[in-house]
């Protein structure tokens, strides 16, 4: 299996993502934002970072990158599984490939902390996870407050598109476990083969770094961990 990782100008979690994939024994293919073909790529990751400095709105400028035309096409024509992490999530929302938008954190401040997230509904590309699973993953973002248009929240839940919600370590979801002001504590959403999440699984690859749950998460996405 070949996993493509797109580097946009200003991406800075691309090397961590390569590292994580290589730890899992996966062939990773570096892609540059001007590339126009995704041929030979089986899965795709849009990594975290500050593409274009997060200027204007996080992800907005990268959403216009030439490679995003190919991404859009591969999703609609081949059901290409795409994972957007942090800035990658923002880019996918800005491009309209995922519903909603990411707004500045309610505190108005960047926040880097360890959080727990609870699996609410399992996307088609994560057969290895089940509802109620709790993962410990770090967040690091300034604009991570997930928001939807009025009236759009209920359909998201009904359509099983709400993937992860910020919770406590036992999976309880409430206001005190919301690190950034996201509506309904939403940390990740999906739409068909496309998934976006604010936490950084690629940083949680070993217990000595704080958690190995990121490895579990990525394995589940790669289809290797059908627990």
């Amino acid at each position, binding site marked *: 299996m070949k996993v493509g990782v797109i580097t946009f100008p200003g991406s800075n979690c691309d090397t961590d993502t390569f590292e994580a994939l290589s730890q899992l024994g996966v062939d990773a293919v570096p892609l540059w934002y001007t590339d126009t073909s995704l041929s030979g790529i089986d899965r795709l990751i849009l990594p975290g970072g500050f593409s274009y400095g997060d200027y204007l709105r996080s992800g907005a400028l990268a959403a216009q990158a030439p490679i995003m035309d190919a991404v859009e096409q591969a999703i609609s024509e081949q059901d290409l599984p795409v994972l957007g992490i942090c800035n990658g999530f923002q880019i996918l929302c800005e491009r309209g490939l995922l519903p909603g938008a990411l707004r500045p954190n309610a505190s108005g401040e960047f926040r880097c902390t360890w959080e727990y997230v609870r699996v609410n509904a399992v996307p088609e590309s994560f057969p290895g996870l089940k509802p109620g699973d709790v993962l410990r993953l770090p967040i690091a973002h300034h604009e991570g407050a997930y928001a939807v248009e009025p009236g759009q929240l209920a359909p998201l839940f009904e359509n099983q598109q709400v993937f992860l919600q910020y919770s406590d370590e036992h999976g309880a979801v409430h206001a005190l476990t919301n690190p950034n002001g996201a509506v309904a504590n939403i940390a990740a959403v999906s739409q068909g083969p496309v998934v976006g999440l604010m936490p*950084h699984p690629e940083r949680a690859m070993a217990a000595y770094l704080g958690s190995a749950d990121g490895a579990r998460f990525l394995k589940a996405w790669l289809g290797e961990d059908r627990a």
Partner: protein
Amino acid sequence: MTYQDVGLTEEEYRVIQQQLGREPNELELGLFGVLWSEHCSYKSSKNLLSWLPHEGPAVVQGPGENAGIVALNDHVHVAFKVESHNHPSYVEPVQGAATGVGGILRDIVAMGARPIALADSLRFGTDDKAKWIQNGVVEGVGAYGNAIGIPTVTGEVAYGAVYDKNPLVNVMAIGLLSPEHQVSASGAKVGSYLVLLGQPTGRDGIHGASLLASQDFGDATEHMRPTVQVGDPFMGKMLMEATLNAIQTDKLDAVQDLGAAGLTSSVAELAYRSGVGAHIWLERVPCREEGMTPYEIMLSETQERMLLVVSPENWPVVEEIIQHWEVPYSIIGEVSADQELVISLNGEIVAAVPPQILAGSCPRRPAISKWAQTAREQAPQLTAFRPLTFEREWALEVLGSPNCRSRHRIYERYDSMILTNTVWGPTHDLAVLRVRGSEEGLAVAVSGPGRYAARDAYSGGLAAVSRVMGLLATQGAMALGLTDGINAGNPDKEHVFLDLTHLIAGIADASQGFGVPVTGGNVSLHNETEGEPIWPTAIIGAVGRHLHPLHPTNDAPWKAGLNIIRLSA
């Protein structure tokens, strides 16, 4: 324009006339003004700094280059240095702090090292404005570090009313390089191109850092504050990648970042260190604004710029790398054999000064060794350990002080985990980092007990070094080297210079005593407003070799019934 207008003394002006053998023209005078300012020349501190030990088994590069380098092992070298951005952070906290981070990162990159960590040491006042300044500074450090993707893994903060109008923002950066790809600012060869890389030059901070950091400010001088420099971490990231990738090809002669005094300082220092001359063609410098004068172009402190020196035959390979990273660039001159820095505009020479005069001849303030000796003799001695009577109110007062408050509101605004090397981050007293491809990792600590130095500057110097060495010792980490950020008031005042002397003597004696070299640092003077200087504050950063970074030695558990044992000599 007179020599006073550019901040030179009569004596300095005489030295310039004598060495040049003529009167400098206005532009040349301006160049001397900035390069001979305290901030660029270190004229008051250089002789004192010579007391610091610079040698050790791990030292690869001591002071004098953009950053010091020590060897972690045979295949991994570590570049690290602390830098201050105090005055700009008072004028505009967010941008002042952000550009401070950008600046120290470029120093590390200019050594060919890829930055892997930042540590910030902050001092704020206690009034209402200090809260606003703190908020802005923390925002700025985060805004730059987070965006460029370098984690801030540890730091410290302390408060005192003396910092109300003179906050301190000292940032240490650490980078890794492989011994094969080291570059420096001293390899420029005759005939090579000078390539200016990065942000087009604007009128940012003309007379900025140098002026700002070399004078005392009061309300009367408010109008002299220069245009605020804005940090662009996005350009910083592209510039960093372009520069590091270019260095990897081994096709560069030399690299020098542009910091205080912009092009003037970087070309003069590069030429001086390399023992060559240089010609600069000003019409080739890309400018952001119309009608910039030679003076403005030479002294602009626009951020996110780097100077590369490349021979014509190597240029095509390097140019391709720069183009890939979409960084603006221009060949703005060439290295010459004539030992002169010649600046021309459209073929007309507007200034010509030998680099060794500009960068190497500023008269230095003599160090007074006798003062250091007195400090040693008179340092307060710890003669007895007097148990304190416990008073509930005192304890509550101490616990309620801002100096004891939890720091999570600061460090959670920094990405401390990116690059996934942070085994121990800001929830601990020091940072422990793994180093890919090595068994050994790094222990990183910063500390600067300014309050001690306020009572006795010599002891303050000793304490600053002892504290970081103590922190490394808790991990059994072997100190490879130290970097020192020295902050004080106006050195023209005898008591300030006395304190400075004592402080540096303390650092020197402690480093000597521990057998640890100081491989670089930064001096920031004139930290005073309306005649009120700060406490002499030395921020010491330490980098140590950690033998088992994936399993740091646990913090001591606090449990009832455990004994507390004090070790002392």
